[in-house]
């Protein structure tokens, strides 16, 4: 779809001007915001190299808003690039997988439970080595240093440059993983090493899965992040670049290049937060219709509903916190294949994707898409309606009705209460959702609906997190937790969050039975909305993952 810049409003004086970008599989959306007001927005096709699409989108914004590149305070980018790479199984590194836990765990070697084709594609070499910790801090076995050197050399000889290391109880004691990283670096200096304690919490299989995914994305992550940086530099933007994380907060570009897996759920998070922001609706169902899929999530009290147990990424079980999303293969570019009769047609699941601006009838092509049908039925108006093929109205209406049924089924699967829900329709293909769709009490279509995910990136949340070891014999638990809670809330506000929006989103306590007394390691994270007048320069980007 052509770029559309909506409602350029006047810039206010004190607020920091920020750009939010969402790099999707089909489109690259971008918005320019001033504090919390959307000043300009645009939608461009995603380019194969990512950066050309980003450059084009940001150029649109600067031109429309009449702003110099140097006036931009920060650029926040959310991307589904890494998720798509995993789902489509392309551009993934082969990974050298090292687990330090033997002899325990040998019944469940790494990649158990993975989709077979993905496992075959990713697995470079697997090493189950002696090492790891017991719950009380003892070693399961002493670290097999010779085995590690051999493994690293084997990876080097095989040309494997991405290595994932996991170790039993690493979130409690990271020493063996860190020692392993040093030994690997000595034997195989070119290796990029992902350590499990940097990626996840207790639960070896899920943490290891996340670490392997991270390692598989290592080369792509460096390429994508550096190409984003180059795009900004070419535009003359010197503002810092941040990447959206799964929970709506940001990490630095450098951190994202090392830990791409931390950003893998940011697409749905951004679109849901953007939808909530644009509508003020706190409880409802967000339907983000893109070019290829409709992602359906639930907003509960203003936050995306999370999956409680395990999150599947590309069929792999992990324990990341991220929104519970149902993806349906139905978007603006979804192909419609016609048969002989009025009831004889197939919708999707494939899509023309970013080639919609060439392949669909609306843009002069010869592939029938969901967008063509919507325009033919008068549900949307873009492209050149004169190019649409002649369709019997009964057939057209049957296709429209089938699309509504598919979407309504999705609403029904995600709904938790029995009554009708408020539906927030966003994304470039939101017109596919009709106002009277089954299961909807009402359908809300906010201004800027088409770029809700870029808005979500731009209104990033700021967070503060900390990790402390507390002896509850010295400081009672309720007091220790309350003190930490207040410290984090204050730090989040100091980092730019509005006071009434800050809340503790995560608290993790691990008792350390190897220390005297009742000692526990507490990790806590507070997150809030970025205040209008805040500058991201004040935000402390916590890089505490390696602290112990």
């Amino acid at each position: 779809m052509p770029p559309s810049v909506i409602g350029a409003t006047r810039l206010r004086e004190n607020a920091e001007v920020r750009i939010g970008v969402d790099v999707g599989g089909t489109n690259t959306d971008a918005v320019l915001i001033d504090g919390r007001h959307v000043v300009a927005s645009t939608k461009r096709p995603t380019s194969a190299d990512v950066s050309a699409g980003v450059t084009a989108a940001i150029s649109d914004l600067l031109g429309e808003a009449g702003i110099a590149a140097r006036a931009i305070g920060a650029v926040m980018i959310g991307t589904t690039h890494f998720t798509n790479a995993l789902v489509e199984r392309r551009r993934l590194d082969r990974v050298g997988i090292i687990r330090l836990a033997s002899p325990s765990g040998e019944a469940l070697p790494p990649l158990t439970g993975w989709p077979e084709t993905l496992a075959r594609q990713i697995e470079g070499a697997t090493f189950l080595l002696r090492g790891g910790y017991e719950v009380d801090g003892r070693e399961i076995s002493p670290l097999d240093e010779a085995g590690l050197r051999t493994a690293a050399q084997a990876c080097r000889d095989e040309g494997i440059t991405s290595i994932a290391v996991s170790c039993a109880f690493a979130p409690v004691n990271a020493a063996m993983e860190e020692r392993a990283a040093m030994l690997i670096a000595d034997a195989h200096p070119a290796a990029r090493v992902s350590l499990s304690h940097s990626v996840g919490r207790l639960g070896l299989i899920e943490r290891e899965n996340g670490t392997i995914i991270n390692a598989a994305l290592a080369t792509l992550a460096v390429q994508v992040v550096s190409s984003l940086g180059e795009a900004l530099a070419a535009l003359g933007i010197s503002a810092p670049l941040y990447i959206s994380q799964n929970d709506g907060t940001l990490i630095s570009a450098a951190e994202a290049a090392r830990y791409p897996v931390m950003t893998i759920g940011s697409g749905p998070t951004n679109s849901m937060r953007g939808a909530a922001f644009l509508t003020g609706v706190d409880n409802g169902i967000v339907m983000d219709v893109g070019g290829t899929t409709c992602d359906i999530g639930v907003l509960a009290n203003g936050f995306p509903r999370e999956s409680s147990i395990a999150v599947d990424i590309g069929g792999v079980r992990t324990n990341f916190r991220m929104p519970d999303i149902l993806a349906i293969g139905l978007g603006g570019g979804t192909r419609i294949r016609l048969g002989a009769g009025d009831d004889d047609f197939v919708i999707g699941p494939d899509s023309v994707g970013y080639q919609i601006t060439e392949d669909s009838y609306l843009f002069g092509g010869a592939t029938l898409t969901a967008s063509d049908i919507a325009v033919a039925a008068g549900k949307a108006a873009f492209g050149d309606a004169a190019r649409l093929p002649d369709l019997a109205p009964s057939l057209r209406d049957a296709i429209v009705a089938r699309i509504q049924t598919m979407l309504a089924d999705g609403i029904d699967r995600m709904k938790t209460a029995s009554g009708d829900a408020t539906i927030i329709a966003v994304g470039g293909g939101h017109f596919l959702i009709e106002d009277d769709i089954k299961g909807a009490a009402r359908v809300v279509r906010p201004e800027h609906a088409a770029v809700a995910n870029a808005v979500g990136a731009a209104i990033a949340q700021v967070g503060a997190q900390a990790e402390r070891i507390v002896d509850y014999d010295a400081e009672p638990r309720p007091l220790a937790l309350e003190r930490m809670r207040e410290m984090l809330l204050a730090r989040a506000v100091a980092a730019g969050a509005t006071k009434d929006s800050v809340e503790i989103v995560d608290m993790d306590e691990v008792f350390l039975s190897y220390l005297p007394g009742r000692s526990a390691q507490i990790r806590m994270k507070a997150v809030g909305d970025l205040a209008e007048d805040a500058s991201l320069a004040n935000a402390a980007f916590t890089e505490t993952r390696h602290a112990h």
Partner: protein
Amino acid sequence: MRIERESELQDLARGAAFLGSGGGGDPYYSLLLAEAALARRGAFELVPLSEIADDALLAPCGWIGAPTVSVEKLPNGSEAVAGLRRLEEIMGRPIDAVLPIEIGGGNGLAPLIAAAELRIPVVDCDGMGRAFPESQMAIFNIRGLSACPSVLTAADGSLNVINTEDNLAHERAARALAVSLGGIAHMVEYPLSGAEARQHAVPGSITAAIAVGRAIREARAAGEDPFEALGAALEATGLYPHCFTLFDGKIVDLERETCEGFSVGRVTIEGFGDGSRMEVEFQNENLVAKRDGKILAMVPDIITLMDRDTADTITTEKLKYGQRVKVIAAAAPAILRDDQALSFVGPRAFGMAFDFAPVETLNLSETA
């Protein structure tokens, strides 16, 4: 009867997770192992108690330890077979079939894997009708059978035979060994005859777990309320005649410690909007649920926290701050509720200062 399909294993895992009352370990790891065994060796044979010969030698087995440890320290794979082989040596005869010491959690599936290795069937019954933290809480101890000879094996290849006069001493010895071996070990215990199992074991609990898991899966697939389906399926088993939703809210505090071989702690859930709170105390398993100080369910009745949307069970080691959960309680099988049983598995057996009251009595007003 045979378990032939992965979907049946998944139903069993889902049902066993619920019946675990928060304990028995997340069945996910056992499920992965069982799926691999199914692919490698074919269908699992499941035999009803009625078809077992009186003089058959049956071996209850499962994992002992803290579920919080089981998510990090995973099995080596040699533990179960090593333990069962040693028991055969001690008994001087082959084991005819195995059964889960407890149907709840991962332990409800664990014997399948051992059975596949030994090519013997699994008996459709168990020793607890749910999961309990301690070995002497098995119905076999309540009914006076001996836990010994018992064999405890660990990932490092170590093997210990336990022979004690009484079953509480057996539990203490086994627990101390499990702690010294890193907090998790495999145990074969209460070897018994077919006749004894028919007299004492909780019958049909594996098929009951499969039915419960299937009901949740099918309700979800059909877009129906999985909690209603769960309640109906539990009642239909005949073993678990009542089911209640005690609470619906978000986890706002979680205190969980691995202590002397157990996961102990409490979880606090805040209701949506109304400011009420539920507190659930656990020792591996959830023991008591109180809403604003008032007890709504207690051991041995089943208390399970589930994802409020998907009805996935959240075992104690998988609880996290911020999870949105429903607290579901189900009446325990009747054989766990008589006076003799309650002295081993009632609230006083867990050091609580009150007598057992059934969940259906405590929630009378809810049903009225």
